[in-house]
């Protein structure tokens, strides 16, 4: 483990502009190690941009992002972060297994990792299929499998469970918590509020600002509702009133 004191991710006053418009307005928060943190918010609220800034592929206008004790984007971090993009990073003209073999080589992961991650995301049966012939859910699982290759200390997943059937979704969440139990930090985005309850910690984002940062229970208490969808609405009202 690298510098294992302090939070996995520390963001201070992060500002990002895209196309001349500021989309993240000075975010400040920490993501603790070894937990599953949910990044929630409606489509277009800046989740993907924030994840890109953490992974180090986003041009930022200001602020600091520190990941595992190093500035985001440092070469040393590239092996330690598993990242699954929203637009599945899968070559459509390669089989699933060929895709994983290539990314394993790039990430310096052992060869038998390919079969392990195929198993973990439930794609062993489709391993020989070309990326282009996969369903949307299979594609995003293939992309997720890439993020699990090697032994990442931080796994950043952009909407990994979109379009999956509930059984599979539950299996994946079990997998995420299993990773967290081994000390891996996970940051998982979703625009579905019911996934929030599965996280140990929540960051709620709306229009480039943080609406809430805490545990699901803390959020329920603060908004006096057990329904997270309702909680989100109350947070928006609270913000508007302030």
């Amino acid at each position, binding site marked *: 483990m690298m510098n294992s004191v302090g939070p996995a991710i520390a963001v201070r006053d992060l500002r990002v502009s895209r196309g001349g418009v500021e989309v993240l307005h000075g975010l400040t928060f920490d993501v603790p190690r070894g937990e599953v943190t949910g990044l929630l918010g409606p489509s277009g609220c800046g989740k993907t941009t924030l994840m890109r800034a953490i992974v180090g592929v986003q041009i930022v206008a200001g602020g600091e992002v520190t990941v595992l004790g190093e500035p985001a984007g440092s070469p040393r971090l590239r092996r330690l972060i598993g990242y699954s*993009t929203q637009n599945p990073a899968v070559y459509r003209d*390669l089989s699933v297994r060929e895709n994983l073999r*290539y990314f394993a080589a790039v990430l310096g992961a052992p060869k038998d990792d390919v079969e392990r991650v195929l198993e973990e995301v439930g794609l062993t049966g489709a391993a020989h299929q070309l990326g282009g012939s996969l369903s949307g859910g299979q594609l995003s699982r293939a992309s997720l499998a890439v993020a699990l290759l090697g032994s990442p200390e931080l796994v950043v997943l952009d909407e990994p469970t979109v379009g999956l059937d509930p059984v599979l979704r539950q299996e994946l969440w079990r997998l995420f918590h299993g990773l967290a139990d081994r000390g891996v930090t996970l940051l998982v985005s979703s625009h579905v509020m019911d996934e929030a309850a599965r996280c140990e910690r929540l960051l709620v984002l709306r229009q480039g600002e943080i609406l809430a940062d805490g545990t699901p229970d803390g959020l329920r208490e603060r908004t006096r509702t057990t329904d997270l969808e309702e909680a989100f609405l109350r947070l928006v009202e609270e913000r508007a009133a302030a």
Partner: protein
Amino acid sequence: MNPAITIATARRIMNQLRHDHRTVALMVLVPTLVMILLYYVMDDERSFAMWAPILLCVFPFLVMFLVTSIATLRERTSGTLERLMASPLGKLDLLLGYGIAFGLMACVQVALALTVSLTWLGLDLPGDLWPLVLVALLNALLGTALGLLCSAFARTEFQAVQFMPIVMIPQILLGGILVPRAQMAAPLEWISDVLPMSYAIEAMRDAVVGGDIGGEFWRDLLIVAGAALLALVLGAATLRRRTP
């Protein structure tokens, strides 16, 4: 840069081609078919002997330019490039991977076109074979490198295809194929002097005439190789780890 990653990238691109039989068939067969067509259009061995080397020069360049620019554009527009930029892969690993994979394809392409020309079509080479092969291969690599570079300036595949005439036609018109370079108006000759294809065509002429593989031939080859290297380095500079 990491040789293991470069090789893995080249292998991955070859695997992608392996799944795409039609593209491979087009890449390998088209230059040969054009040579055969030229042979029957010319219907006279001396004219064919004059034009064949030029086609051997232009075609690998053209095909490699097109295939490379579209392949890399696809990488840029799908999620894969972003994922790779967040990984330990170096920019040159990616570019050299493409260079190696498509360079190998260019070898196959040139080998087939040459074999058919030299046997069935009876192309007569007074000199050695290797200078001709060398020029054709370098030219294919130049096409690959320029394709990589141009793909950075295209947002869509439609745009990428439009770069082909922009890059190709001036080089063919000013390269001394239709009008000898020395007979061009001075400004055109200056432009011709900075276009790498002009040197490739001159080197190809030397290679075909034979007997005179000397300093000038090597200078021309060096210029073509330098242009390919420059395009690769510029192409690497257009790849950014961080994007807006």
